[in-house]
Each structure stands twice: as structure tokens, then as C-alpha cells.
């Protein structure tokens, strides 16, 4: 293992100290491992919190700030944060208008947020609503799985729901916008390499030079199947086809295309991939309304990418274009 770290056991707390040093506009609670907006709680605004295992940076801590999250809870690498953290974050962002929990659909995240919501509501009476993201078409949504994983759509949802909260809309409406984004979004990912969890010290799985893993999540877990390496245009087909056959993206106001890097893939390759995805969507008659290209929901040092499509409407596009000022996304200001 070759990594820019000190003690593998301290990676998360060391990184949080770095975030605090680089972003004085944020407030970091090191004891509870929470990154807050500097001005939290914002009175009269619905507070948005998210959180999850670390190792997906900039998600979630890099999306804290005006127009997105009010707080993010950092768990250990790839491990859900604990209820105490989420309950503390909930209390810390409650500006009197309630708090929205944005949870990626993983067994641990869902259970810990559930316990946190019960805890915070019992202690302070703060109103909590929850939206669970589950956009990964690689997972069959059935009784025989834990349900689809929450992946790329979470980034778009945090931006769009954050803008709705910034307009001072009530909790029920912010939650409804968030659920609409999740319902209209689908993702699919692929890995060229595994990743190395610092505490484990070696790659989570082995993948030869000639192979890639299709249908991966964001935790270095193996995917649905292993296939021979292929050129970008064929890879784009493998990612976009299952998305288009899962949901009708035609009609409406076009799509927001999010080409995400898994951590170790250079931007130039993401643009090669974006071009192939744009060609496929062009042939399918699906107009692209907006795009986002870059590593925004990563899996440590995994090489690979994921594609997220979000079917847009006027409201979604207006909220997408609204000002945002966070370490990870920043425009309109």
C-alpha cells in the first residue's frame, strides 16, 4: 500500500483537520466528526444533513455550504457514521424549519440514520424527514437484495434540494423535490481497478489488466460481472443501455448528465467517456440540458467511472442553476 497518510487508523480525523484548515468558512466538530456550514443553523431554513462512510470525497463534506448541505457526518472509511453523530448534526442545523436527512441506501446508513432520527426527535422535538437515494440500476430491486444502492444521484439531489431549502420552502416541499430527483435519476458504474482501504492495506479485490468489473458500487465491492476490457464507446454502451432500459428519459426538459470519476481516473478519460455518452443520448433523441463531469462521488483510489442521468423539468433546472458555494461545487456567486 502506497498512500499519503500517517497512521491508517487516523485517516478520517487527519483529513477533517485538513478540511478545517483549508476551509475556514466551514466549522468542523472534530469530536463528532461533523462538517457544518459556518453560519449553521440558518434561522427559518430547512436544514439538510447527509453523511456516510468516508472515502467518497468530495461527497459529503465537500458539499457543505450555501445552496447545498448544512452539515455532513463523516464515518470511518466506507462505514456509516453512528447515530450520535447524526443526532448531533440534526440538532446543530435545526433553524426551526425542520431537518432533512439525505441517506444513501445501504443497510448500515439506513439503520444508523433511523436510530439518529428517533434520538433527535425524542430529545428536542425537531421535525425530521428522510429521503433515501437508490439510483443504481446494477442492483436488482427485489426482495432478494438490500435494494438498489444510492450512488451518483445523491450529488445532484444534494444540490437541487439544497437550492429548494435556500428558497425557504417548507420541509415537506424540500423532501418532495428530493424524492422527485431520486425517482427521476438512474446510475451505473464500472471499475478498472479495485481500491485499497487504508486499514486493510491491500486492494479489496483483484482485477487483471485485461478485465473490468461492471455494476460496481462506491465501496470497492465487487460488481455484478467481470468482462474483458473494451474501448470507451463500448463501455459507454454498457453503462447507458441498462439506464435507458430501466426508465424513460424521453420527453420532459432533457436530462442532466453526470459523468463521475471513481477517484483514480483522470479527467481526460472522463471527457472521452462523456463524448460517447452524449453520442448515445443524441441517437436516442434525448437532449442534454446540463452536464457535470468530474470525480464527485468517489471510491478512494478506484479507477473507473459512473454515469448518472436525471430527467429534468423546469423546477429541477432552475434549482440546479441556483447559486452554490461549497468546496466541491461552486457557481452563480
Amino acid at each position, binding site marked *: 500500500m502506497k498512500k499519503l497518510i500517517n497512521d491508517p487508523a487516523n485517516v478520517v480525523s487527519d483529513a477533517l483537520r485538513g478540511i478545517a484548515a483549508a476551509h475556514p468558512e466551514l466549522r468542523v466538530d472534530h469530536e463528532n466528526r461533523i462538517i457544518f456550514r459556518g453560519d449553521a443553523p440558518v434561522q427559518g431554513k430547512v436544514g439538510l444533513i447527509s453523511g456516510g462512510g468516508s472515502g467518497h470525497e468530495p461527497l459529503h463534506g465537500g458539499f457543505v455550504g450555501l445552496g447545498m448541505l448544512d452539515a455532513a457526518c463523516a464515518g470511518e472509511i466506507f*462505514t*456509516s457514521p453512528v447515530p450520535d453523530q447524526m443526532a448531533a448534526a440534526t440538532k446543530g442545523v435545526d433553524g426551526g424549519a425542520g431537518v432533512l436527512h439525505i441517506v444513501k441506501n445501504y443497510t448500515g446508513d439506513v439503520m444508523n440514520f*433511523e436510530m439518529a432520527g428517533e434520538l433527535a426527535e425524542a430529545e428536542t422535538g425537531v421535525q425530521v424527514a428522510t429521503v433515501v437515494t437508490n439510483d443504481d440500476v446494477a442492483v436488482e430491486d427485489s426482495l*432478494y437484495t438490500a435494494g438498489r444502492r444510492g450512488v451518483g444521484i445523491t450529488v445532484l439531489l444534494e444540490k437541487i434540494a439544497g437550492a429548494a431549502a435556500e428558497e425557504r420552502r417548507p420541509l415537506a416541499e424540500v423532501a418532495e423535490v428530493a424524492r422527485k430527483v431520486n425517482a427521476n435519476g438512474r446510475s451505473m458504474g464500472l471499475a478498472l481497478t479495485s481500491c485499497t482501504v487504508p486499514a486493510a492495506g491491500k486492494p479489496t479485490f483483484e482485477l487483471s489488466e485485461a478485465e473490468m468489473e461492471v455494476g460496481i458500487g462506491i465501496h470497492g465491492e465487487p460488481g*455484478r460481472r467481470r468482462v474483458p476490457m473494451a474501448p470507451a464507446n463500448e463501455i459507454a454502451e454498457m453503462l447507458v443501455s441498462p439506464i435507458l432500459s430501466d426508465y424513460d428519459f424521453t420527453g420532459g426538459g432533457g436530462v442532466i448528465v453526470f459523468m463521475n470519476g471513481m477517484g483514480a481516473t483522470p479527467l481526460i478519460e472522463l471527457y472521452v467517456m462523456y463524448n460517447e455518452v452524449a453520442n448515445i443520448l443524441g441517437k436516442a433523441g434525448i437532449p442534454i440540458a446540463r452536464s457535470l463531469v468530474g470525480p464527485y462521488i468517489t471510491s478512494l483510489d478506484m479507477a473507473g467511472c459512473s454515469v448518472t442521468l436525471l430527467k429534468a423539468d423546469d423546477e429541477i433546472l432552475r434549482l440546479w442553476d441556483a447559486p452554490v458555494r461549497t468546496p466541491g461545487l461552486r457557481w452563480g456567486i
Partner: protein
Amino acid sequence: MDTAAFSAWIREFARLVGQNKDYLTELDSAIGDADHGANMTRGLNAVVKMLDEEKPDTPSALLKRTGMTLVSTVGGASGPLYGTAFLRMAAAAGDAETLDDGTFAKMLRAGLDGVLARGKAQLGDKTMVDALTPAVDALDATLAAGMPFPDAMQAALRAGEEGRDATVPLVARKGRASYLGERSAGHQDPGATSVTMLLAAAATTLTA
């Protein structure tokens, strides 16, 4: 069984998990996200520290603080699941300073019920339930048949180990391993494996 016995049980569980940290992580690498050993070790180290500092004075208090510490330190799915199990065991233990065999069996069943309620897994889903259920059933059955507790606990451990081994061919239906579909078959479940360590610790510490 008094508070000291329960303290010894939990400390032995912590020792076994710590000793097998890399093994648990290796099992989790195959079908999960390679963190079960590290997470459980971190949580149980915090529990041992809590036991040293707070010295809870009843079995129920000890189990309750163990559960709360695990919920607060483990994270992932194992934190709420093990945490809920210990919190339910604490409630079932009541205020007594010492517990008899029958109460211990009821307590273990309450822990299993807590895991089922929190995780919504069923037998055969390739989870910790697959080791805990047969162990709890075996403990009830052997105690009911009049077997002395040390032997009954050994029988429970064996049943748990058989349940653990039986997870190998299963296709996971809950937790992160379920994302693998058929590819999860052929691997032993890490959660069922750490459960057998909890049982093994009980078999060696609660029989003296």
C-alpha cells in the same frame, strides 16, 4: 452468573474478535467492503475501556452500556445490529444481580429478536441471524432437556458454528453482500462468523 461473569464474557468476545480482526476483514473483502474486523475491533476496544472505567454494577447495566457503546463506535450495519442485541439483552436481564440459566437463555433470545427487528433479515439470508438463531434454539432445547448449562452452552456454540458454516453456499439477500447476487455464494458470512465468537466467549467464561 454475576456481573463479573458478564464482564469476563464481553472481554473474551473482544479478545477473540481482536485476535481474528484480519480474518473477519478477509471474509468481508470477498463479499462486502472489508471493514467488519476493523469496525468490531474498534467498538469492542471502546467497550473494554468503558468496562474498565465505569465498572457497571449489574448484568443489565453492563449489557446496556455495552450496547450503547457499540452503537456509538462501530458504525456500518454491525453497530446498530450488535448494539440493539445487547440493549434487548439488557432489558431482558432485568434488575437482578445474578442470572440463572433460564434467564440467560431468554436474554439471548431477546437479543436475537432485536437483531431480527432492526435488520429485518430472515433465516437463510446469509447474515448473523443464521448463526444466532440455531444457537439460541439449541440453548433452549438442551436446557429444557435438563442438560447442565456448560454442556448446553457448548451445544449452542456447535449449533452456531454449524449455522455459520452453512452460510457458505448461500446467496446473500440482505446487506452489502446481496448486491453480488449469485457471486456471494461460496463465501462464509463475516457477521455469522463474529456471532460464533460471541458464543465461544460465552461457552468459555459463563460455565466456570
